[in-house]
């Protein structure tokens, strides 16, 4: 499987919220850096927890890959849009059933034997809060319609 196919597979499984299947694409010691959340650690714990929370909070999640290329060191570079309607608290933000569209950029480092060994994701958490109705960064759990 090429790095490109592997990345498409990864985002497809992310959309489906299939944590086990996502982890099945990774090396056992794969790392994750969710930069806006300041979460840096093992994919098997930190990454899996994020995928689970995303799937629970946005059961109608759609992950759209807008741009994808593979660098010479076999890193898949993707711009994606995640889209869905909030159905449960997410990252401490209470559920107001807001519809969210959020652009993100992901780097997936792929090993020669076609496993993802490192994941790094960038997005603007301020945009996410705005779409979920958060007004103040020191009161994330307080939202306004």
């Amino acid at each position, binding site marked *: 499987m090429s790095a490109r196919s592997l990345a498409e597979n990864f985002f497809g499984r992310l959309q489906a919220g299939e944590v086990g299947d996502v982890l099945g694409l990774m090396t056992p010691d794969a790392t994750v850096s969710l930069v806006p959340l300041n979460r840096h650690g093992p994919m098997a714990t930190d990454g899996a927890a994020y995928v689970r929370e995303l799937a629970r909070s946005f059961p109608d999640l759609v992950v759209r890959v807008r741009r994808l290329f593979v660098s010479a*060191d076999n890193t898949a570079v993707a711009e994606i849009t995640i889209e869905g309607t909030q159905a449960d608290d997410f990252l401490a933000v209470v559920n107001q059933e807001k519809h969210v569209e959020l652009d993100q950029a992901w*780097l997936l480092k792929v090993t020669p034997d076609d496993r993802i060994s490192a994941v790094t994701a*960038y997005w*603007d958490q*301020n*945009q996410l809060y705005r779409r979920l109705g958060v007004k103040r960064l020191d009161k994330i759990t307080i939202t306004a319609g």
Partner: protein
Amino acid sequence: MTTDVIRAGTEVTPHESGAPAAVLAFFDAYRVHDVERMVDLCTEGADFRYVPFEVRGRQRVLHGEGKVRTIGKVIWTALIDAFPDLTNAVTSLRADEQGNVVAEVSVGGIQARPFGIIASAGGHFELPHLFLFHVTGDGLIDDIVAYWDNVDWKRQLGCVEVD
């Protein structure tokens, strides 16, 4: 192109050619606040998109999206004005053979003037960015996209408002 990945923190001074060289030249120019040089490294109609850049007006949201020679130049100039010691360090650089380049860059500076809704309290910030470029066969940048987290940025500068 043979570029794999450069991870050298502040020591990035590689002898790169082609697309990576254009990108490194861009950040060199940005580091010395030479906005004209930044623009000259881009094609006439180069596209520009700073994804987190959203300004809420009364009627609509203004996005940081358009052309390098219009929107990009204005935003870079405003940033340098607000953060007179604005600097950057390229921490990783990757490229393919079609002119796509991705750079992880730490951008930082001390605030001297308000920027958007962020009032100036003289705070310092260091913020990870991800930049995506496309470079033409002539070595000119024809597309710039950037991602960063405004929550991290605002918190470092003492701003707690989402909008």
